[in-house]
């Protein structure tokens, strides 16, 4: 079976599965819309109504990250609970290739969040949807989503050995929103946190998307999105191999 077929089949299957999940409906549509509304009112009460598109994009990206995070954190755990993890690990393709389409589908589902917050903002808050560089926006969005999917793959690999992957997912939601500056500038954060931001694909992704929408340099952040996505992929292939071997050696693959 070719790698492309594995990716396509896994992507479509997981897309259908998450499409029927009320949990994903919550993280990819409902939650971003609520956070977008909170941000709209906070920006309005602070007299920064001109930044509503900024808030809509940020809240949408928060949804993309939440969906990716909980989806990727859940991949290993849910498969453990369902007893299908051993089948995925025992399949002839490498473990990274088996789970890459799953994480990609999760991140793709997260795009609903961006669509939801933009439509919500337009309909209820009159957010202008004028994009300064529409074609670059169309390019930056999937690049960011794929990069986040690859980052999710790296996270999923580390959860093979971790019994409480879901708890770690709960923990990592807000910190990445903060460190990536998804809805406020990272200049508000202490200087020591800056290198952490630079290592996160969402940081560069929101910069690329924001600059494409509101004006600014797009190619630099977009390049970083691609570089970090590739780095995540390479690292995850490596970590999947190591963690899978350790889980097999300790017989802890299906720990619950």
């Amino acid at each position: 079976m070719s790698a492309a077929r594995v990716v396509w089949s896994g992507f479509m299957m997981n897309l259908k599965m998450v499409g029927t999940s009320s949990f994903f409906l919550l993280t990819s549509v409902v939650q971003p819309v609520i956070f977008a509304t909170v941000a709209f009112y906070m920006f309005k009460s602070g007299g920064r109504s001109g930044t509503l598109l900024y808030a809509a994009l940020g809240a949408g990206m928060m949804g993309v990250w939440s969906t990716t995070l909980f989806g990727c954190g859940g991949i290993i755990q849910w498969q453990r609970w369902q007893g299908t993890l051993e089948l995925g690990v025992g399949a002839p393709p490498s473990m990274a290739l088996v789970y890459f389409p799953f994480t990609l589908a999760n991140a793709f589902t997260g795009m609903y969040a961006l669509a939801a917050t933009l439509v919500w903002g337009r309909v209820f808050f009159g957010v202008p949807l004028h994009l300064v560089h529409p074609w670059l926006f169309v390019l930056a969005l999937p690049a960011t989503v794929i990069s986040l999917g690859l980052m999710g793959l790296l996270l999923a690999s580390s959860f093979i050995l971790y019994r409480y992957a879901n708890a770690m997912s709960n923990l990592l939601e807000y910190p990445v929103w903060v460190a990536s500056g998804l809805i406020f500038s990272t200049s508000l954060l202490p200087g020591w946190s800056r290198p952490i931001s630079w290592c996160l694909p969402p940081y560069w992704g929101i910069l690329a998307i924001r600059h494409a929408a509101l004006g600014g340099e797009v190619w630099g952040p977009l390049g970083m999105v691609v570089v970090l996505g590739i780095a995540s992929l390479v690292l995850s292939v490596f970590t999947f191999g190591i963690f899978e071997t350790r889980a097999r050696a300790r017989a802890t693959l299906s720990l619950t």
Partner: protein
Amino acid sequence: MKRWLSIFFVGGVIAYRGLFNWIRPAMYIPTMLGSPLFQLIFFTKLGQYAHAESRDFYIVGNSVQVCAMSSVYGMTMSVANERWFGTLGPLLASPANRSAVFLGRGVPVLLNGLFVSAFTFIIGAVLLGFHPGAGSIPPLALIVVVTTASCTCFGMLLGSIGLRAKDFFFVANLAYFLMLLFCGVNIPLNVLPGWMSAIGRCLPLTHGIAAAREVAAGASLSHVSGLVWTEVGVAAAYALAAYVLFRVLERESRRSAVLDTY
């Protein structure tokens, strides 16, 4: 009365230990302490960026609201997980007083919510420079107790829904996030449209957070007694509604033989 109290306290603790036996430090710390900590930082920084309200506004609002992590999710699970674990049938077949069984589950959840809220206040003081006067701390603590109790009663109502609803986690999650929007946690009620602030006033947290903000700013407890008593009234109303709903759904589930089904 002695038996009622025994079921209320001992039963509540045993039920908590049984239903939450899966909680370990590796699960509790990231979820119940890490997540509120970063929620506090997120909204405080967002407020700073939006130039909306003072830093203390967000610290107090979020430090009180995070009690809902325990009160809403915990209380929902305290009732609905009986069904999930298949123990609802034996529980409801017992002759134990229903109000003691039901309300007793709120005590451990309430204590947990208080701990989470206190932790977040301490983080606000250590990391974000929240320093209320020493005289403000006792009334602030009392208001947090009342508000957490109110939130726990709201969680009881959601838990009762979980007695029949298939996807009670969706409801609990939705309620938690809507509280951030409606209850004046991060947005002053006068900024929200009238219908939203009206809903907010019917929810737990809203009056408690308003009272906590005033007390943290130096007001006396007697000055905010109206807000505190309103929060007590909201708590009583939700507790009553939750108990009535619990009994109605229990009877309906028995009548239609769907007690343990999904």
